[in-house]
Protein backbone atom coordinates (compact mmCIF):
# COMPACT_ATOMS: atom_id res chain seq x y z
CA UNK A 1 0.00 0.00 0.00
CA UNK A 2 2.89 2.35 0.77
CA UNK A 3 4.32 1.67 -2.69
CA UNK A 4 0.90 2.36 -4.19
CA UNK A 5 0.64 5.70 -2.42
CA UNK A 6 4.13 6.71 -3.50
CA UNK A 7 3.29 5.69 -7.07
CA UNK A 8 0.17 7.87 -6.94
CA UNK A 9 2.28 10.73 -5.57
CA UNK A 10 4.87 10.65 -8.34
CA UNK A 11 2.35 10.01 -11.11
CA UNK A 12 0.40 13.12 -10.20
CA UNK A 13 1.09 16.30 -12.12
CA UNK A 14 0.12 18.39 -9.10
CA UNK A 15 3.04 17.05 -7.07
CA UNK A 16 5.63 18.29 -9.53
CA UNK A 17 3.80 21.50 -10.31
CA UNK A 18 3.70 22.54 -6.66
CA UNK A 19 7.35 21.59 -6.10
CA UNK A 20 8.27 23.53 -9.23
CA UNK A 21 6.47 26.60 -7.94
CA UNK A 22 8.13 26.30 -4.54
CA UNK A 23 11.53 26.21 -6.23
CA UNK A 24 10.66 29.05 -8.60
CA UNK A 25 10.16 31.69 -5.90
CA UNK A 26 13.77 31.71 -4.61
CA UNK A 27 15.01 31.65 -8.20
CA UNK A 28 12.99 34.76 -9.07
CA UNK A 29 14.20 36.55 -5.94
CA UNK A 30 17.81 35.60 -6.74
CA UNK A 31 17.52 36.93 -10.28
CA UNK A 32 16.21 40.27 -9.03
CA UNK A 33 18.94 40.61 -6.41
CA UNK A 34 21.69 39.59 -8.83
CA UNK A 35 20.51 41.99 -11.52
CA UNK A 36 19.99 45.01 -9.25
CA UNK A 37 22.64 44.22 -6.62
CA UNK A 38 20.09 45.43 -4.10
CA UNK A 39 19.85 43.02 -1.21
CA UNK A 40 17.79 44.05 1.80
CA UNK A 41 19.90 45.62 4.55
CA UNK A 42 20.88 43.40 7.48
CA UNK A 43 18.02 42.92 9.88
CA UNK A 44 15.36 43.60 7.30
CA UNK A 45 13.56 41.41 4.84
CA UNK A 46 13.57 37.64 4.82
CA UNK A 47 16.25 35.87 6.83
CA UNK A 48 19.73 35.61 5.23
CA UNK A 49 18.80 37.65 2.15
CA UNK A 50 21.07 40.53 3.14
CA UNK A 51 24.08 38.24 3.08
CA UNK A 52 23.56 36.28 -0.10
CA UNK A 53 25.16 38.76 -2.48
CA UNK A 54 28.46 38.11 -0.78
CA UNK A 55 27.93 34.51 0.11
CA UNK A 56 25.96 32.67 -2.53
CA UNK A 57 26.49 29.42 -0.67
CA UNK A 58 24.17 30.72 2.03
CA UNK A 59 21.38 31.03 -0.51
CA UNK A 60 19.77 27.66 0.42
CA UNK A 61 19.14 29.06 3.87
CA UNK A 62 17.69 32.25 2.41
CA UNK A 63 15.54 30.21 0.02
CA UNK A 64 14.16 28.07 2.84
CA UNK A 65 13.31 31.25 4.73
CA UNK A 66 11.46 32.55 1.66
CA UNK A 67 9.26 29.47 1.11
CA UNK A 68 8.70 28.64 4.77
CA UNK A 69 5.97 31.14 5.71
CA UNK A 70 3.49 30.46 2.89
CA UNK A 71 4.55 28.29 -0.04
CA UNK A 72 5.63 25.18 1.86
CA UNK A 73 2.76 25.08 4.35
CA UNK A 74 0.20 25.65 1.59
CA UNK A 75 1.61 22.81 -0.50
CA UNK A 76 1.87 20.45 2.48
CA UNK A 77 -1.62 21.33 3.72
CA UNK A 78 -3.09 20.73 0.27
CA UNK A 79 -1.38 17.34 -0.06
CA UNK A 80 -2.27 16.18 3.44
CA UNK A 81 -5.78 17.64 3.30
CA UNK A 82 -6.42 15.73 0.09
CA UNK A 83 -5.17 12.40 1.39
CA UNK A 84 -8.39 10.93 2.80
CA UNK A 85 -10.97 13.54 1.78
CA UNK A 86 -9.81 13.43 -1.84
CA UNK A 87 -10.24 9.65 -1.99
CA UNK A 88 -13.63 10.02 -0.35
CA UNK A 89 -14.88 12.59 -2.84
CA UNK A 90 -13.74 10.62 -5.89
CA UNK A 91 -15.30 7.49 -4.41
CA UNK A 92 -12.07 5.52 -4.52
CA UNK A 93 -11.89 5.37 -0.71
CA UNK A 94 -14.66 2.76 -0.49
CA UNK A 95 -12.98 0.60 -3.12
CA UNK A 96 -9.62 0.79 -1.35
CA UNK A 97 -11.23 -0.20 1.96
CA UNK A 98 -13.17 -3.01 0.29
CA UNK A 99 -10.04 -4.37 -1.36
CA UNK A 100 -9.29 -4.63 1.64
CA UNK A 101 -6.82 -2.03 2.76
CA UNK A 102 -6.97 -1.71 6.52
CA UNK A 103 -7.92 1.76 7.67
CA UNK A 104 -4.82 2.13 9.84
CA UNK A 105 -2.61 0.91 7.02
CA UNK A 106 -4.19 3.39 4.61
CA UNK A 107 -3.64 6.25 7.03
CA UNK A 108 0.01 5.27 7.55
CA UNK A 109 0.57 5.01 3.79
CA UNK A 110 -0.97 8.44 3.30
CA UNK A 111 1.23 9.88 6.04
CA UNK A 112 4.34 8.38 4.47
CA UNK A 113 3.39 9.85 1.09
CA UNK A 114 2.99 13.29 2.73
CA UNK A 115 6.38 12.91 4.45
CA UNK A 116 7.92 11.92 1.12
CA UNK A 117 6.38 14.95 -0.55
CA UNK A 118 7.66 17.30 2.18
CA UNK A 119 11.15 15.84 1.95
CA UNK A 120 11.20 16.07 -1.84
CA UNK A 121 10.04 19.69 -1.66
CA UNK A 122 12.61 20.72 0.99
CA UNK A 123 15.45 18.92 -0.77
CA UNK A 124 14.42 20.36 -4.14
CA UNK A 125 14.40 23.90 -2.74
CA UNK A 126 17.80 23.41 -1.11
CA UNK A 127 19.47 21.88 -4.15
CA UNK A 128 18.06 24.30 -6.70
CA UNK A 129 18.78 27.31 -4.50
CA UNK A 130 22.34 26.17 -3.85
CA UNK A 131 22.84 26.00 -7.60
CA UNK A 132 21.17 29.39 -7.94
CA UNK A 133 23.32 30.88 -5.22
CA UNK A 134 26.58 29.62 -6.65
CA UNK A 135 25.76 30.28 -10.30
CA UNK A 136 23.78 33.52 -10.18
CA UNK A 137 24.86 35.21 -6.97
CA UNK A 138 28.35 33.74 -6.83
CA UNK A 139 30.42 33.07 -3.70
CA UNK A 140 33.07 35.70 -4.29
CA UNK A 141 31.15 38.62 -5.65
CA UNK A 142 32.21 42.10 -4.54
CA UNK A 143 30.26 43.39 -1.60
CA UNK A 144 27.40 45.66 -2.47
CA UNK A 145 25.52 46.68 0.59
CA UNK A 146 21.86 46.99 -0.20
CA UNK A 147 20.32 50.33 0.60
CA UNK A 148 16.71 49.80 -0.33
CA UNK A 149 15.31 46.80 -2.11
CA UNK A 150 12.93 44.27 -0.79
CA UNK A 151 11.24 45.44 2.34
CA UNK A 152 10.23 42.91 4.91
CA UNK A 153 6.87 41.68 3.72
CA UNK A 154 7.61 38.50 5.57
CA UNK A 155 8.38 39.15 9.18
CA UNK A 156 11.26 37.14 10.55
CA UNK A 157 9.19 36.62 13.69
CA UNK A 158 10.71 34.66 16.50
CA UNK A 159 14.15 33.16 16.49
CA UNK A 160 16.00 36.43 16.20
CA UNK A 161 16.54 38.66 13.21
CA UNK A 162 19.46 37.60 11.09
CA UNK A 163 22.52 39.79 11.26
CA UNK A 164 24.77 37.98 8.89
CA UNK A 165 28.16 39.46 8.39
CA UNK A 166 29.05 41.16 5.15
CA UNK A 167 32.70 40.35 4.77
CA UNK A 168 33.55 38.78 1.48
CA UNK A 169 35.70 35.70 1.82
CA UNK A 170 36.12 32.05 1.06
CA UNK A 171 34.53 30.82 4.29
CA UNK A 172 30.84 31.42 4.90
CA UNK A 173 30.20 33.55 7.93
CA UNK A 174 27.81 32.42 10.62
CA UNK A 175 25.21 34.72 12.13
CA UNK A 176 27.49 35.09 15.12
CA UNK A 177 30.32 36.38 12.95
CA UNK A 178 32.59 33.38 13.24
CA UNK A 179 33.41 31.62 9.98
CA UNK A 180 31.86 28.27 9.02
CA UNK A 181 33.78 25.66 7.07
CA UNK A 182 32.08 24.09 4.05
CA UNK A 183 31.52 20.88 6.00
CA UNK A 184 29.95 22.83 8.84
CA UNK A 185 27.75 24.65 6.37
CA UNK A 186 26.47 21.34 4.99
CA UNK A 187 25.79 20.15 8.52
CA UNK A 188 23.88 23.29 9.37
CA UNK A 189 21.86 23.20 6.16
CA UNK A 190 20.94 19.56 6.78
CA UNK A 191 19.89 20.48 10.30
CA UNK A 192 17.74 23.31 9.00
CA UNK A 193 16.15 20.99 6.43
CA UNK A 194 15.31 18.44 9.09
CA UNK A 195 13.82 21.11 11.33
CA UNK A 196 11.70 22.60 8.55
CA UNK A 197 10.51 19.16 7.43
CA UNK A 198 9.41 18.35 10.97
CA UNK A 199 7.68 21.74 11.24
CA UNK A 200 5.77 20.96 8.06
CA UNK A 201 4.78 17.55 9.41
CA UNK A 202 3.04 19.34 12.26
CA UNK A 203 0.94 21.11 9.62
CA UNK A 204 0.48 17.82 7.78
CA UNK A 205 -0.83 16.13 10.92
CA UNK A 206 -3.47 18.83 11.41
CA UNK A 207 -4.50 18.66 7.73
CA UNK A 208 -4.59 14.85 7.79
CA UNK A 209 -6.85 14.90 10.84
CA UNK A 210 -9.21 17.38 9.16
CA UNK A 211 -9.08 15.21 6.04
CA UNK A 212 -10.61 12.34 7.98
CA UNK A 213 -13.40 14.61 9.23
CA UNK A 214 -14.68 15.93 5.92
CA UNK A 215 -15.11 14.79 2.34
CA UNK A 216 -13.89 18.13 1.06
CA UNK A 217 -10.15 18.14 0.37
CA UNK A 218 -10.05 21.89 0.02
CA UNK A 219 -11.91 22.33 3.29
CA UNK A 220 -9.33 20.22 5.13
CA UNK A 221 -6.41 22.14 3.57
CA UNK A 222 -7.92 25.53 4.33
CA UNK A 223 -8.75 24.45 7.86
CA UNK A 224 -5.11 23.58 8.50
CA UNK A 225 -3.95 26.87 6.97
CA UNK A 226 -6.46 28.80 9.05
CA UNK A 227 -4.94 27.17 12.13
CA UNK A 228 -1.50 28.41 11.05
CA UNK A 229 -2.72 31.93 10.34
CA UNK A 230 -4.41 32.06 13.74
CA UNK A 231 -1.22 30.82 15.33
CA UNK A 232 0.84 33.48 13.52
CA UNK A 233 -1.54 36.19 14.71
CA UNK A 234 -1.27 35.03 18.31
CA UNK A 235 2.52 34.70 18.10
CA UNK A 236 2.83 38.44 17.43
CA UNK A 237 0.23 39.39 20.05
CA UNK A 238 1.73 40.29 23.41
CA UNK A 239 -1.58 39.67 25.15
CA UNK A 240 -1.39 36.03 24.09
CA UNK A 241 2.05 35.45 25.53
CA UNK A 242 0.69 32.83 27.95
CA UNK A 243 -0.18 30.43 25.12
CA UNK A 244 2.63 31.36 22.75
CA UNK A 245 5.05 28.57 23.72
CA UNK A 246 2.42 26.03 22.64
CA UNK A 247 1.49 27.52 19.26
CA UNK A 248 2.47 25.46 16.22
CA UNK A 249 4.31 28.31 14.47
CA UNK A 250 6.03 29.70 17.58
CA UNK A 251 9.41 28.07 16.89
CA UNK A 252 9.13 27.83 13.11
CA UNK A 253 12.11 30.11 12.58
CA UNK A 254 14.30 28.49 15.21
CA UNK A 255 16.22 26.67 12.46
CA UNK A 256 18.05 29.97 11.88
CA UNK A 257 19.89 29.16 15.10
CA UNK A 258 21.63 26.34 13.22
CA UNK A 259 23.63 29.10 11.53
CA UNK A 260 25.01 30.51 14.77
CA UNK A 261 28.43 29.53 16.01
CA UNK A 262 28.05 27.48 18.15
CA UNK A 263 24.54 26.24 17.34
CA UNK A 264 22.00 27.75 19.70
CA UNK A 265 19.98 24.65 20.61
CA UNK A 266 17.36 25.93 23.03
CA UNK A 267 14.66 27.01 20.58
CA UNK A 268 15.54 24.26 18.12
CA UNK A 269 14.88 21.65 20.79
CA UNK A 270 11.64 23.33 21.77
CA UNK A 271 10.59 23.51 18.13
CA UNK A 272 11.19 19.80 17.59
CA UNK A 273 9.34 19.08 20.83
CA UNK A 274 6.23 21.12 20.07
CA UNK A 275 5.96 19.68 16.54
CA UNK A 276 6.28 16.17 17.95
CA UNK A 277 3.40 16.90 20.32
CA UNK A 278 1.23 18.26 17.51
CA UNK A 279 2.01 15.25 15.35
CA UNK A 280 1.22 12.73 18.07
CA UNK A 281 -2.00 14.43 19.11
CA UNK A 282 -3.43 15.04 15.64
CA UNK A 283 -2.33 11.75 14.11
CA UNK A 284 -3.88 9.92 17.05
CA UNK A 285 -7.07 11.92 16.58
CA UNK A 286 -7.03 11.20 12.83
CA UNK A 287 -6.62 7.49 13.51
CA UNK A 288 -9.29 7.37 16.20
CA UNK A 289 -11.75 9.15 13.95
CA UNK A 290 -11.01 7.31 10.72
CA UNK A 291 -10.93 3.83 12.23
CA UNK A 292 -14.41 4.15 13.72
CA UNK A 293 -16.21 6.25 11.16
CA UNK A 294 -18.88 5.15 8.68
CA UNK A 295 -17.67 5.49 5.11
CA UNK A 296 -20.77 6.69 3.28
CA UNK A 297 -19.19 8.27 0.21
Amino acid sequence: MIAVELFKLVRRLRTWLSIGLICALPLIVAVFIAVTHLAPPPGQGSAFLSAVLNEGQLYPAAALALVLPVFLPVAVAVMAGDSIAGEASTGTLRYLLARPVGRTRLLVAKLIAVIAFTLIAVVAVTVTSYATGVLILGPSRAAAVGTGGISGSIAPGAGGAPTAGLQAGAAVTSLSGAPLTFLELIERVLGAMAFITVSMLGVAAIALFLSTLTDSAIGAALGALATLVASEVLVTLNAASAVQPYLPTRYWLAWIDFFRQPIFWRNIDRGFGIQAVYMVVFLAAAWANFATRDVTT
Partner: protein
Amino acid sequence: MITTRDLTKRFGRVEAVREVTLDVREGDRYGLLGPNGSGKTTLVRMLLGLVYATSGEISVLGYRVPKHVSRVLPEIGALIEEPAAYPHLSGRANLRLLDAAGPHGARRTRRRRVDEALEQVGLAGIDRRPVRSYSLGMRQRLGLAAALVRRPRLLILDEPTNGLDPRGIRDIRNLLIGLNDSGVTVFMSSHLLPEVSALCTRIGVLDSGRLVLQEQLAALQEPTGRVLISTDDPERAVAALDGLIERQDGADLVVRSPDPAALNARLVAAGVPVRSLAAERRSLEDIVLEVTGAGSDQFGVPASGEPDVPSTTANGEPQ
Protein backbone atom coordinates in the same frame (compact mmCIF):
# COMPACT_ATOMS: atom_id res chain seq x y z
CA MET B 1 -22.85 -17.00 2.15
CA ILE B 2 -24.38 -13.91 3.70
CA THR B 3 -26.56 -13.94 6.77
CA THR B 4 -27.62 -11.09 8.98
CA ARG B 5 -29.66 -11.15 12.14
CA ASP B 6 -31.78 -8.19 13.24
CA LEU B 7 -29.39 -5.83 11.51
CA THR B 8 -30.17 -2.20 12.30
CA LYS B 9 -28.43 1.02 11.35
CA ARG B 10 -29.37 4.44 12.63
CA PHE B 11 -27.91 7.67 11.26
CA GLY B 12 -28.80 10.15 13.95
CA ARG B 13 -32.59 9.85 14.23
CA VAL B 14 -33.04 8.18 10.86
CA GLU B 15 -33.32 4.40 10.86
CA ALA B 16 -31.84 3.47 7.47
CA VAL B 17 -31.95 -0.29 8.04
CA ARG B 18 -34.30 -1.92 10.53
CA GLU B 19 -33.96 -5.43 11.90
CA VAL B 20 -33.03 -7.02 8.61
CA THR B 21 -32.54 -10.78 8.65
CA LEU B 22 -30.96 -11.58 5.33
CA ASP B 23 -30.16 -15.06 4.04
CA VAL B 24 -28.13 -15.42 0.86
CA ARG B 25 -27.18 -19.01 0.06
CA GLU B 26 -24.25 -20.38 -1.87
CA GLY B 27 -24.95 -20.40 -5.60
CA ASP B 28 -27.73 -17.83 -5.38
CA ARG B 29 -28.24 -15.04 -7.78
CA TYR B 30 -29.83 -12.83 -5.18
CA GLY B 31 -31.56 -9.60 -6.11
CA LEU B 32 -32.14 -7.03 -3.39
CA LEU B 33 -34.99 -4.81 -4.50
CA GLY B 34 -36.47 -1.70 -3.06
CA PRO B 35 -37.37 1.87 -3.86
CA ASN B 36 -34.81 4.66 -3.66
CA GLY B 37 -33.84 5.37 -0.09
CA SER B 38 -35.07 2.03 1.21
CA GLY B 39 -31.68 1.18 2.69
CA LYS B 40 -30.14 -1.00 -0.05
CA THR B 41 -26.85 0.85 -0.20
CA THR B 42 -26.49 1.15 3.56
CA LEU B 43 -27.08 -2.59 3.85
CA VAL B 44 -24.46 -3.32 1.17
CA ARG B 45 -21.96 -1.02 2.90
CA MET B 46 -22.51 -2.80 6.21
CA LEU B 47 -21.82 -6.17 4.56
CA LEU B 48 -18.46 -4.78 3.37
CA GLY B 49 -17.49 -3.24 6.70
CA LEU B 50 -17.67 0.33 5.42
CA VAL B 51 -20.57 1.31 7.64
CA TYR B 52 -20.82 -0.03 11.17
CA ALA B 53 -24.14 -1.49 12.31
CA THR B 54 -25.97 0.05 15.26
CA SER B 55 -27.11 -3.41 16.34
CA GLY B 56 -27.52 -6.89 14.95
CA GLU B 57 -25.09 -9.39 13.51
CA ILE B 58 -23.54 -9.95 10.10
CA SER B 59 -21.82 -13.08 8.87
CA VAL B 60 -20.27 -13.25 5.41
CA LEU B 61 -18.63 -16.44 4.08
CA GLY B 62 -18.83 -17.79 7.60
CA TYR B 63 -16.94 -14.92 9.24
CA ARG B 64 -18.29 -12.20 11.48
CA VAL B 65 -18.31 -8.73 9.93
CA PRO B 66 -16.90 -6.20 10.68
CA LYS B 67 -14.65 -8.08 13.13
CA HIS B 68 -13.06 -10.40 10.57
CA VAL B 69 -13.81 -8.29 7.53
CA SER B 70 -10.18 -8.41 6.35
CA ARG B 71 -10.48 -12.19 5.96
CA VAL B 72 -13.73 -11.94 4.05
CA LEU B 73 -13.06 -9.09 1.65
CA PRO B 74 -10.31 -10.78 -0.42
CA GLU B 75 -12.93 -13.30 -1.53
CA ILE B 76 -15.45 -10.63 -2.48
CA GLY B 77 -15.71 -8.49 -5.57
CA ALA B 78 -17.73 -5.38 -4.94
CA LEU B 79 -19.32 -2.58 -6.87
CA ILE B 80 -20.59 0.01 -4.43
CA GLU B 81 -23.10 2.55 -5.75
CA GLU B 82 -21.14 3.77 -8.71
CA PRO B 83 -17.71 2.83 -10.02
CA ALA B 84 -14.82 5.09 -9.03
CA ALA B 85 -11.33 5.38 -10.50
CA TYR B 86 -8.43 7.80 -10.58
CA PRO B 87 -9.39 9.95 -13.56
CA HIS B 88 -5.86 10.78 -14.69
CA LEU B 89 -4.82 7.13 -15.01
CA SER B 90 -5.85 4.61 -17.66
CA GLY B 91 -8.35 1.87 -16.91
CA ARG B 92 -5.64 -0.76 -16.87
CA ALA B 93 -3.41 1.33 -14.58
CA ASN B 94 -6.36 1.80 -12.25
CA LEU B 95 -6.98 -1.95 -12.02
CA ARG B 96 -3.26 -2.64 -11.39
CA LEU B 97 -3.15 0.02 -8.70
CA LEU B 98 -6.28 -1.24 -6.96
CA ASP B 99 -4.99 -4.80 -7.11
CA ALA B 100 -1.62 -3.76 -5.70
CA ALA B 101 -3.33 -1.98 -2.80
CA GLY B 102 -3.96 -4.30 0.08
CA PRO B 103 -2.95 -7.92 0.48
CA HIS B 104 -3.74 -11.01 -1.61
CA GLY B 105 -3.17 -9.50 -5.03
CA ALA B 106 -0.28 -11.66 -6.22
CA ARG B 107 2.02 -9.55 -8.36
CA ARG B 108 3.02 -12.59 -10.45
CA THR B 109 -0.51 -13.09 -11.79
CA ARG B 110 -1.58 -9.45 -11.80
CA ARG B 111 -1.12 -8.74 -15.50
CA ARG B 112 -2.98 -11.90 -16.46
CA ARG B 113 -5.83 -11.30 -14.02
CA VAL B 114 -6.23 -7.68 -15.09
CA ASP B 115 -6.30 -8.63 -18.78
CA GLU B 116 -8.76 -11.40 -18.07
CA ALA B 117 -11.09 -9.12 -16.11
CA LEU B 118 -11.00 -6.48 -18.85
CA GLU B 119 -11.84 -9.15 -21.40
CA GLN B 120 -14.72 -10.46 -19.30
CA VAL B 121 -16.41 -7.06 -19.21
CA GLY B 122 -15.74 -6.29 -22.87
CA LEU B 123 -12.92 -3.79 -22.40
CA ALA B 124 -10.16 -6.06 -23.73
CA GLY B 125 -9.06 -3.66 -26.45
CA ILE B 126 -8.89 -0.73 -24.07
CA ASP B 127 -6.18 1.76 -24.93
CA ARG B 128 -4.09 4.03 -22.73
CA ARG B 129 -6.68 6.78 -22.57
CA PRO B 130 -7.27 8.15 -19.07
CA VAL B 131 -10.47 7.17 -17.31
CA ARG B 132 -11.71 10.77 -17.36
CA SER B 133 -12.43 10.34 -21.09
CA TYR B 134 -14.53 7.18 -20.55
CA SER B 135 -18.28 7.07 -21.16
CA LEU B 136 -20.62 6.15 -18.31
CA GLY B 137 -21.00 2.63 -19.68
CA MET B 138 -17.22 2.15 -19.93
CA ARG B 139 -16.79 3.29 -16.34
CA GLN B 140 -19.44 0.83 -15.25
CA ARG B 141 -17.66 -1.99 -17.10
CA LEU B 142 -14.37 -0.94 -15.53
CA GLY B 143 -15.99 -1.01 -12.10
CA LEU B 144 -17.17 -4.56 -12.76
CA ALA B 145 -13.69 -5.51 -13.97
CA ALA B 146 -12.29 -4.18 -10.69
CA ALA B 147 -14.72 -6.45 -8.85
CA LEU B 148 -13.57 -9.45 -10.90
CA VAL B 149 -9.78 -8.95 -10.77
CA ARG B 150 -9.37 -11.06 -7.62
CA ARG B 151 -11.54 -13.89 -8.99
CA PRO B 152 -13.95 -13.66 -6.07
CA ARG B 153 -16.28 -16.35 -4.69
CA LEU B 154 -18.92 -13.77 -3.93
CA LEU B 155 -19.92 -10.71 -5.91
CA ILE B 156 -21.68 -7.87 -4.11
CA LEU B 157 -22.93 -5.51 -6.76
CA ASP B 158 -24.89 -2.34 -6.16
CA GLU B 159 -26.83 -1.44 -9.35
CA PRO B 160 -24.49 -3.35 -11.69
CA THR B 161 -26.24 -2.39 -14.94
CA ASN B 162 -26.45 1.31 -14.14
CA GLY B 163 -25.56 3.47 -17.15
CA LEU B 164 -25.30 0.58 -19.60
CA ASP B 165 -27.08 0.46 -22.96
CA PRO B 166 -29.35 -2.52 -23.79
CA ARG B 167 -26.51 -4.49 -25.32
CA GLY B 168 -24.30 -3.74 -22.33
CA ILE B 169 -27.04 -4.86 -19.97
CA ARG B 170 -27.37 -8.15 -21.82
CA ASP B 171 -23.55 -8.62 -21.88
CA ILE B 172 -23.30 -8.11 -18.14
CA ARG B 173 -26.31 -10.33 -17.45
CA ASN B 174 -24.75 -13.16 -19.47
CA LEU B 175 -21.41 -12.58 -17.74
CA LEU B 176 -22.99 -12.81 -14.29
CA ILE B 177 -24.97 -15.92 -15.21
CA GLY B 178 -21.77 -17.49 -16.58
CA LEU B 179 -19.84 -16.66 -13.40
CA ASN B 180 -22.70 -18.00 -11.30
CA ASP B 181 -22.63 -21.26 -13.27
CA SER B 182 -18.93 -21.58 -12.45
CA GLY B 183 -19.69 -21.29 -8.74
CA VAL B 184 -19.72 -17.57 -7.94
CA THR B 185 -22.55 -16.40 -5.72
CA VAL B 186 -24.04 -13.12 -6.91
CA PHE B 187 -25.70 -10.64 -4.57
CA MET B 188 -26.95 -7.56 -6.34
CA SER B 189 -29.14 -4.64 -5.46
CA SER B 190 -31.27 -2.91 -8.02
CA HIS B 191 -34.45 -1.02 -8.54
CA LEU B 192 -34.72 -2.23 -12.13
CA LEU B 193 -37.30 -4.97 -11.89
CA PRO B 194 -36.86 -6.39 -15.42
CA GLU B 195 -33.15 -6.81 -14.73
CA VAL B 196 -33.69 -8.69 -11.50
CA SER B 197 -36.45 -10.69 -13.09
CA ALA B 198 -34.18 -11.79 -15.94
CA LEU B 199 -31.15 -12.51 -13.77
CA CYS B 200 -32.01 -13.50 -10.24
CA THR B 201 -33.07 -16.76 -8.68
CA ARG B 202 -33.93 -15.32 -5.31
CA ILE B 203 -35.10 -11.91 -4.21
CA GLY B 204 -35.35 -9.79 -1.11
CA VAL B 205 -37.42 -6.64 -0.95
CA LEU B 206 -36.51 -3.72 1.28
CA ASP B 207 -39.04 -1.10 2.18
CA SER B 208 -38.20 1.79 4.51
CA GLY B 209 -35.26 -0.21 5.82
CA ARG B 210 -37.26 -3.38 6.51
CA LEU B 211 -36.89 -6.62 4.63
CA VAL B 212 -40.53 -7.21 3.75
CA LEU B 213 -40.03 -10.19 1.49
CA GLN B 214 -37.34 -12.83 0.87
CA GLU B 215 -38.09 -15.82 -1.31
CA GLN B 216 -37.08 -17.90 -4.32
CA LEU B 217 -38.30 -16.06 -7.39
CA ALA B 218 -39.67 -19.29 -8.88
CA ALA B 219 -41.81 -19.83 -5.78
CA LEU B 220 -43.17 -16.31 -5.95
CA GLN B 221 -43.97 -16.71 -9.60
CA GLU B 222 -45.75 -20.06 -9.36
CA PRO B 223 -48.82 -20.27 -11.57
CA THR B 224 -51.72 -18.48 -9.89
CA GLY B 225 -54.27 -21.10 -10.85
CA ARG B 226 -55.60 -18.98 -13.66
CA VAL B 227 -55.04 -19.41 -17.39
CA LEU B 228 -54.98 -16.62 -19.91
CA ILE B 229 -56.55 -17.49 -23.23
CA SER B 230 -56.77 -15.51 -26.42
CA THR B 231 -59.11 -16.80 -29.09
CA ASP B 232 -60.82 -15.66 -32.30
CA ASP B 233 -64.10 -17.23 -31.19
CA PRO B 234 -64.70 -16.12 -27.59
CA GLU B 235 -68.43 -17.13 -27.58
CA ARG B 236 -67.71 -20.76 -28.34
CA ALA B 237 -64.88 -20.76 -25.82
CA VAL B 238 -67.12 -19.36 -23.10
CA ALA B 239 -69.69 -22.03 -23.92
CA ALA B 240 -67.08 -24.79 -23.81
CA LEU B 241 -65.65 -23.62 -20.46
CA ASP B 242 -68.93 -22.89 -18.80
CA GLY B 243 -68.53 -21.77 -15.20
CA LEU B 244 -64.73 -21.45 -15.25
CA ILE B 245 -64.58 -17.99 -16.86
CA GLU B 246 -63.47 -15.38 -14.39
CA ARG B 247 -63.26 -12.39 -16.70
CA GLN B 248 -63.74 -11.66 -20.38
CA ASP B 249 -62.26 -8.73 -22.26
CA GLY B 250 -63.19 -9.10 -25.94
CA ALA B 251 -61.12 -11.95 -27.33
CA ASP B 252 -59.12 -12.37 -24.08
CA LEU B 253 -60.37 -14.64 -21.32
CA VAL B 254 -59.21 -15.27 -17.79
CA VAL B 255 -60.08 -18.80 -16.80
CA ARG B 256 -59.84 -20.44 -13.40
CA SER B 257 -58.03 -23.75 -13.89
CA PRO B 258 -54.88 -25.28 -12.45
CA ASP B 259 -54.09 -27.25 -15.62
CA PRO B 260 -53.54 -25.36 -18.87
CA ALA B 261 -52.94 -28.55 -20.87
CA ALA B 262 -56.32 -30.06 -19.97
CA LEU B 263 -57.97 -26.74 -20.70
CA ASN B 264 -56.33 -26.60 -24.10
CA ALA B 265 -57.44 -30.14 -24.94
CA ARG B 266 -61.00 -29.25 -24.00
CA LEU B 267 -60.99 -26.14 -26.22
CA VAL B 268 -59.50 -27.98 -29.16
CA ALA B 269 -62.07 -30.78 -28.77
CA ALA B 270 -64.82 -28.15 -28.85
CA GLY B 271 -63.33 -26.74 -32.05
CA VAL B 272 -62.25 -23.43 -30.52
CA PRO B 273 -59.40 -21.77 -32.44
CA VAL B 274 -56.90 -20.92 -29.68
CA ARG B 275 -54.50 -18.11 -30.51
CA SER B 276 -52.55 -18.27 -27.28
CA LEU B 277 -52.88 -19.98 -23.93
CA ALA B 278 -50.66 -19.57 -20.88
CA ALA B 279 -50.74 -20.13 -17.15
CA GLU B 280 -50.94 -16.77 -15.37
CA ARG B 281 -47.94 -15.87 -13.25
CA ARG B 282 -47.58 -12.79 -11.12
CA SER B 283 -45.10 -10.28 -12.49
CA LEU B 284 -42.22 -9.18 -10.30
CA GLU B 285 -43.68 -5.70 -10.43
CA ASP B 286 -46.95 -6.88 -8.87
CA ILE B 287 -45.04 -8.80 -6.21
CA VAL B 288 -42.85 -5.84 -5.27
CA LEU B 289 -45.52 -3.18 -5.37
CA GLU B 290 -47.75 -5.33 -3.22
CA VAL B 291 -45.24 -5.36 -0.35
CA THR B 292 -43.70 -1.88 -0.61
CA GLY B 293 -44.86 1.66 0.06
CA ALA B 294 -43.78 4.82 -1.63
CA GLY B 295 -40.11 5.51 -2.31
CA SER B 296 -38.25 8.13 -0.32
CA ASP B 297 -38.26 10.47 -3.31
CA GLN B 298 -42.06 10.56 -3.17
CA PHE B 299 -44.05 12.57 -0.71
CA GLY B 300 -47.71 12.68 0.17
CA VAL B 301 -48.25 9.04 -0.72
CA PRO B 302 -49.27 6.91 2.25
CA ALA B 303 -46.93 3.99 2.88
CA SER B 304 -48.60 0.62 2.62
CA GLY B 305 -46.99 -0.82 5.74
CA GLU B 306 -47.31 1.24 8.89
CA PRO B 307 -44.10 0.85 10.88
CA ASP B 308 -46.08 0.26 14.09
CA VAL B 309 -48.03 -2.68 12.74
CA PRO B 310 -45.99 -5.85 13.17
CA SER B 311 -45.27 -7.29 9.76
CA THR B 312 -43.76 -10.67 9.06
CA THR B 313 -40.58 -11.58 7.27
CA ALA B 314 -40.48 -14.04 4.45
CA ASN B 315 -39.66 -16.93 6.71
CA GLY B 316 -42.77 -16.21 8.71
CA GLU B 317 -41.18 -14.90 11.89
CA PRO B 318 -42.63 -11.78 13.39
CA GLN B 319 -40.11 -8.96 13.33
